[in-house]
């Protein structure tokens, strides 16, 4: 398969983007990035909301996703949020361009997607991710439909609801079986299997236990896939934003560049914090350093590296649970902060010096503020 083809059904719609796609790929490769094949597809806002709410386009259907879908649609209709880009970590990668986006907006998306695709391919944490997840999800969806036909829709729905409630307790990187069983979802999954094997087939509980085990096993696999996305949110989005920035530097004309920086400054916190981290590392060590970071680290480790100057914290092979949980949580929490609340934290810097985790949080926040202020100045100059 030749790389970066539009999907066969939508080949003509993307004709105007081909020269840009080709050029951006070449620029990225010249920086040392490498990619998997990408299928580009055009999609409506509804389609994007659908994929974003389900996680993957052919995942099993459930009212919970319906609620997220509805919420996303309402928020998009009222222009409260806008889905910036959507790319699936599969092989080949599927990337979606919004139909009503302007050319510039879609160029931003294309450059951003190249960042993600490079990250998917090269980041060590993603080695474990299931790139066949589209097919697996399809299989799960069919199995769930079959289970619903056998056991009744209501029963299967209840089981899925219960599984979704504990779905976030997965940890695909926990290798110690003992510790893994401390996680609720794994414990129940294994326990239902054991119980099912010890109860007689005539026992009515036997079928329920088997059903629970089947649903939980599927849920574990799917949630392990999504866990990685949450685990690398800042570094992944940051890398994608950084790559986008660097690629578009070479592609856009000055007027377009100004428009791009204005839009770029309005990105949510994880994008800007991640971008700031990579930008700071780039200033220090250039491409070799940032490429190394995107290879080896997830959120905590990426932030931790800056603090610990290259310590082996967070390498997948080095520790089972990368970095400390509290440190990780603070990074996430910081990522959720708005710039104004970040300023408040900086004011409490004196108090926080005693805690390394807090200091890191403050560092991230202050970097963000600095960068956002610079971008704001740029906006002010334009006005």
């Amino acid at each position, binding site marked *: 398969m030749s790389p970066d083809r539009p999907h066969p059904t939508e080949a003509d719609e993307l004709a105007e983007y081909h020269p840009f796609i080709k050029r951006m790929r070449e620029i990225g490769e010249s920086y040392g990035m490498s990619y998997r094949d990408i299928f580009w597809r055009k*999609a*409506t806002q*509804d*389609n994007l*909301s*659908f*994929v*974003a*709410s*389900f*996680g*993957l*386009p052919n*995942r099993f*259907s*459930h*009212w*919970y*996703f*319906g*609620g*997220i*879908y*509805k*919420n*996303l649609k*309402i*928020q998009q209709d009222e222009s409260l*949020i806008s889905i910036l880009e959507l790319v699936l970590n599969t092989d080949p990668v599927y990337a979606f361009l919004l139909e009503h986006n302007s050319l510039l907006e879609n160029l931003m998306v294309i450059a951003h997607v190249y960042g993600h695709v490079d990250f998917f391919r090269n980041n060590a944490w993603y080695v474990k991710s299931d790139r066949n997840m589209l097919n697996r999800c399809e299989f799960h969806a069919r199995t769930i439909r079959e289970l619903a036909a056998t056991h009744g829709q209501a029963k299967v729905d209840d089981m899925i*609801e219960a599984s*979704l*409630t*504990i*779905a*976030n*307790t997965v940890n695909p990187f926990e290798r110690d079986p003992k510790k893994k069983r401390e996680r*609720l979802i794994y414990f129940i999954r294994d326990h239902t299997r054991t119980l099912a094997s010890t109860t007689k087939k005539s026992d009515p509980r036997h079928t329920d236990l088997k059903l629970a085990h089947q649903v939980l096993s599927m849920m574990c696999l799917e949630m392990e896939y*999504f866990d990685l996305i949450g685990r690398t*949110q800042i570094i992944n989005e940051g890398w994608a934003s950084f790559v986008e920035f660097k690629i578009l530097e070479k592609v856009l004309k000055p007027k377009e560049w100004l428009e791009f920086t204005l839009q770029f400054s309005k990105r*949510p916190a*994880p994008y800007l914090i991640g971008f700031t981290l990579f930008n700071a590392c780039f200033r220090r060590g250039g491409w070799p350093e940032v490429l190394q970071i995107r290879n080896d680290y997830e959120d905590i480790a990426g932030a931790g590296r800056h603090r610990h100057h290259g310590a082996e914290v967070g390498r997948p092979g080095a520790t089972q649970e990368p970095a*400390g*949980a*509290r440190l*990780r*949580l*603070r990074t*996430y*929490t910081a990522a*959720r902060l708005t710039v104004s609340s970040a300023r408040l*934290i900086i004011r409490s810097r004196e*108090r*926080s*010096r*005693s*805690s*390394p*985790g*807090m200091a890191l*949080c403050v560092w991230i926040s202050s970097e963000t503020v600095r960068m956002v202020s610079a971008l704001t100045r740029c906006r002010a100059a334009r006005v």
Partner: protein
Amino acid sequence: MAQYVDRGKLAQVEHDKRLREYLKKDFNVLIQKQKLVRDGKVKTNFATLDLPTLRFGKPDKESLASGGGGGKGKPQKGGKPQQGQGQKEELVDVSGAQGADDHSDPQYVELDFDEFVRMAQEQLIEELNLPPLNPPRLSGEVLSDENVELDDQDRYGLMVDLDLEATMVESLKRSLRESGRAEYNVDLRHDGWYFTEAPVTERANRAVEVYLLDISGSVSGHNIALIRKFIFILWYYLDKKYRLNARRYIVFQDEAEEVERDAFFSIESKGGTHISAGLSKALGVLHGFHEYDKYLFFFSDGDNSSSDDEAAKGQLEKLFDAFDLICYGRINPCDSPISPFNKLVKEHLERVENLTFSDIKDLDNVSETVKKFLNIMNR
């Protein structure tokens, strides 16, 4: 990608079904809101229907501010500190989207007003044990933006430039539609044969409903909920009977004003009471409705300004001729003594056939009022 949209919408339908069940529990609180409708939407009291999700880790705002990161941990319930809690993860209850990045505040669930009304009707019909009705048989007339006002020439005479082929086609469609075999839209402008079949027995099958509400201070909280419930039940039955309903909304205190539906369901009580102003406005909005059944639904406590009683009496008598039915719901939560205006209405009640009167005190009372009204309507 088309198939994806359907799956999203199907899941949304499932979500909405469950949502409706939850909303029914919250219905009585919701319907009392002073500003029920905003931009055609009813804003509910809870965010999207969500699942509680458990995961490891606690976004601890307090420790973020104070910087506490020791290994001892905080005391649990019962006073014993848990060793090493600072390094361990805890199971906490958090909620949120799984598949998508969600960087925004939670949005409260909003329902289209029509969807809210349907939900309210289901709830009320069940609660009050009122008879559910089947939808009406499809008539020859079709709802459209271009419903033409018909004059006698349209009714009795064929158009000069009648297109015979178009007439036959439209007539065939109408015939199929009336027999219930296919739901065609019939273009009446080309169906020249329609009105010549039985012009005398053909009914216009349209109604204009005027809702007149006193906002002088008596209408709030419990009362407003009762009035809204009353209106929703009425709509249930009227929508089943009439395919074409024109609805006009008037609010009055010292002065009367015709308002949009949203404003009618988002009232602010103030001012004195001049009932004559409201009644006069109700007559005014009938202008142009020639072939309609005309209904007036009038809600007030009847405590009219004494200087206005004479004027109100005059207007009331004019209303008897103008409307096919006048339904007066007296807002009377505390069994207050009867006012001169209410006395006047009661006097007319004995001799005027198309007038009904009812005290609106509680939900059972609403049910009786509706039944009374329906009896008269079906005479």
